[in-house]
């Protein structure tokens, strides 16, 4: 192998979550140039919002942090945060991408994370990007900002500026990798889940942030309605997923996610009774089934096979009723819980590009077809490990001729 033979390519990675970062690092490791376009204010994607990983129950952030750091420190990875891909066109053998970058109100280059904007803000909209952002910088939630500009004077490094415009830039790249990941889809159309009718009916990602050790409750398990400890929590699997009315797919990560959350809840507060209502307990990865097995025997977590037909808040704030059939006893039950966590409503995201722009082909369920190079949840529902495998394989395919 003579290195002169190697053709150095430039690859555009759309989405800087764990899949996008892994692909970028692999490409950079073999001497290629990578541009990551990330719509969020930092790299990390959905995993950065997780509190714990399964099946180790280890802090999710530490392994991710190393990857973020390697991306930021690599001389051949160029990251554009707060950016979106505007258009993508074919041009002489490669692609021409137009990217719009919006400068956040707080310039991350100048922010020293002193937190004076947070203390100065009368509406409490200045906050760290998230607890573990690296480097830790603040952002201002533009939607709720009262535009009083108190923070501008409070900032010692003059990092805050409201008169910032979007910048457009153009990139010439040889190949594109799609790794835009997933978002939670609204469960509004499925009325029986009662989503939005009570503050104690949460989606699992909302709950993950709510219970996080770095979150506002510092790891305490509390009800969202009155900040008291719940006596019981129901985890509802396949909410919105494996459901032809909303998402036909199995979201693949939710069974383990629910087991992880339930274990964590009982570990933090053994008095809380957790019930997981599942259809099939899908535990296919390394050590996953054993992880689930630990929950079968006691531990405060009960696994019940059944899918609720109705979830409704009881009058007088007396908890939430879950109506379902326990398929192992064939009995119809109505159980009362203090909190209900809905799991499964994860949809692949790919923000639409304007007409004339190149768009990867999608299948009927919204996943990128194999004709385009993609990795992570946008290609197929997948967890961190699966995403990392797909990312490396996508990296390879982006720099070699497909066969």
């Amino acid at each position, binding site marked *: 192998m003579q*290195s002169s033979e190697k053709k150095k390519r430039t690859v555009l990675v759309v989405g800087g979550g764990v899949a996008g970062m892994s692909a970028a690092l692999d490409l950079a490791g073999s001497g290629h140039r990578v541009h990551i376009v990330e719509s969020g204010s930092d790299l990390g994607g959905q995993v950065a919002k997780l509190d714990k990983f399964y099946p180790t129950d280890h802090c999710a952030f530490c392994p991710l942090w190393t990857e973020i750091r390697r991306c930021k*420190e690599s001389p051949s990875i160029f990251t554009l945060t707060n950016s979106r891909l505007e258009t993508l066109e074919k041009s002489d053998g490669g692609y021409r991408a137009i990217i719009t970058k919006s400068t956040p109100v707080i310039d991350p280059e100048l922010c020293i994370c002193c937190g004076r904007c947070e203390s100065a803000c009368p509406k409490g909209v200045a906050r760290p990007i998230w607890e573990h952002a690296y480097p830790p910088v603040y952002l201002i939630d533009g939607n709720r900002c009262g535009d009083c500009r108190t923070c501008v004077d409070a900032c010692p490094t003059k990092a805050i500026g409201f008169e910032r415009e979007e910048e457009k830039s153009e990139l010439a790249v040889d190949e594109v990798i799609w790794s835009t990941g997933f978002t939670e889809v609204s469960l509004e159309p499925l009325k029986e889940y009662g989503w939005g009718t009570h503050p104690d009916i949460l989606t699992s990602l909302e709950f993950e942030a709510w219970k996080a050790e770095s979150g506002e409750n510092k790891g305490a398990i509390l009800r969202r309605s009155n900040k008291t400890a719940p006596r019981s929590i129901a985890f509802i699997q396949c909410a919105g997923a494996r459901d032809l009315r909303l998402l036909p*797919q199995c979201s693949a990560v939710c069974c383990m996610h629910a087991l992880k959350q339930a274990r964590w809840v009982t570990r933090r507060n053994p008095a809380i009774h957790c019930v997981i209502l599942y259809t099939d307990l899908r535990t296919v990865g390394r050590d*996953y089934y054993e992880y689930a097995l630990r929950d079968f025997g006691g531990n405060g977590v009960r696994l019940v096979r059944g899918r609720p037909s109705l979830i409704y808040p009881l009058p007088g704030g007396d908890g939430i009723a879950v109506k379902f059939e326990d398929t192992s006893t064939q009995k119809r039950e109505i159980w009362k819980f203090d909190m209900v966590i809905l799991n499964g409503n994860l949809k692949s995201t790919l923000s639409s590009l304007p007409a004339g722009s190149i768009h990867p082909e999608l299948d009927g369920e919204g996943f990128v077809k194999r004709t385009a190079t993609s990795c992570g949840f946008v290609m197929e529902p997948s967890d961190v*490990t699966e995403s990392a495998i797909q990312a490396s*394989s996508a990296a390879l395919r982006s720099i070699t001729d497909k066969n």
Partner: protein
Amino acid sequence: MAKIGVILCTCFGEIGRVVDLESLKTRLEADPAVDFVTIRDSLCLPGDAARTQALIHERGIGKVILGACSTYGKMEFVRLALAREGTDVRTVRAVDLREGCAWVHGKDPEGASRRAANQIEMEIALLQNRRDSKDVAIRMQQEALVIGAGPAGLSAACGLARLGFKTHLVDRGSAPGGLLNVITKTFPIDEPGPEKIKNLIDETGRNSLIRFYGKTKVSAVKGYAGDFKVSLAGPEGNTALRVGAVVLATGARVLFPQGLFGYGKVKNIITQMEMERRFATGAASCKTAVFVQCVGARNSERPYCSTICCPLSLKNAMRVMDENPGAKAYVLHRDIMTPGSVLEAYYRKALQKGVQFIRFDADRPPEMRGKDQVSGIEVFDTISGVSRTLETDLLVLSTPFIPDPDATALARMLNIPVDKYGFYAEVYPIHPVETRNDGIFICGTARWPVASDQAIAQGEAAAMKAASFLGKEDLSALTMSRVPGGKLGHAVADAAACTGCGNCVAVCPYEACRLQRTGNRSVSRVIKVRCKACGSCVSVCPNGAMQMPEQNYRAVGEMIRRAFREVR
């Protein structure tokens, strides 16, 4: 002795308003080891790095202490910016005065100041006494060895060859293809099995960079990442190779359900693999076929899900119905494992086609009926709560993948860890095809039970990782780390002090310590490429012969002495 420069940051008052930086400055200036102390408002803003570098250059100092925020704040970026300006950052130490002193001890300014002084003085002690590990460069053998020519191994070899690396592909069988040679159709697109990898096999034959060794085993692997010396034992005798990276794609075995459900004694009770052979030979005719899932899996002996058996049963159940018009197919399962969108759609397809699914409980497994020839199976259907007896002339048992003993032996030879079942262990969770050891990559069912599509993807992933590794012409031992900035250093054995007790050899997880015979005694020697700077050997060495130059005994002892100076 080179003098030390100290640059303190007020962080716009974040540090300055708690820690008394002026008296800290006076105190440090009294230290003869310190060249100068400056106080600045920031070190991390644009242009600051250039100013810092200019100051370092002007004073002609090599060692710098930056008293500012934590490494998790902006200090790594400051170090990076300094490195870009041309500073040797190995001797630039960051001391956390903001998060660690000013913020947590905000209510106790005196204590915070004392702690700041202590921490900086400890760093001074370290900088005075630390030494640099000598880096070693290894000439990378830019060739790869792929062991196992199933779907994963073939795709790894093709991937490496596509990237331009010469690849040796070894398999103990005579032809490539692995387990897929047995399978005539694969899920979920019902493609013929060999067809799926035919392209890869063709590419293997076509690409002059790939050399295939059939009926060959790896008899020995010596050396280290970047330069493995491999001996192959094949039909044409022994072959010696030197490769930079090894990809393990050795596959797995399928459990033989001896004694379960009357397998081996009663006729027409077969495994999924035997079912595949029946399909291949056209001997799969039956009126009813019953597939039993989780035979020998998800039990106390093998508490894992083998991933592929559910989709495999879906495929074969549908195939039975296709090939025998009017035939019935039942799948007796515990949970149907079809995660994702593609497999879930495949499950829906099977349901629509009329495959019948009966859910049983692990505590109440189905019971086979029949003496010489299977006649039926009794199963307690947990969903309807009744016991049913299905008449059948064919019972197919879905058994899990189990680790191959050859693969386990290979793991021992290469010193890579296996998990508690015997599958190759990965670097969890973001490096799924990498192992603890550099230059050794894993993919396919040897890593964890996986379907052929994913095995091919894993092969590509392993090829990509191996290619990133092989791409370097010279390998510097100090940069071999997944941690940004490289590893701390490597351990060094002092031959004069070493008594050859072998403690270091016993504790080293990376097999980096070796006893070497010199004259009439044995002394320890560290293979720097393998050393990960964990320090285990240092802690067990009874006479201080094993040292980490960056954090040697003198440096650490002096740090401790300074830390407790005021306490005493």
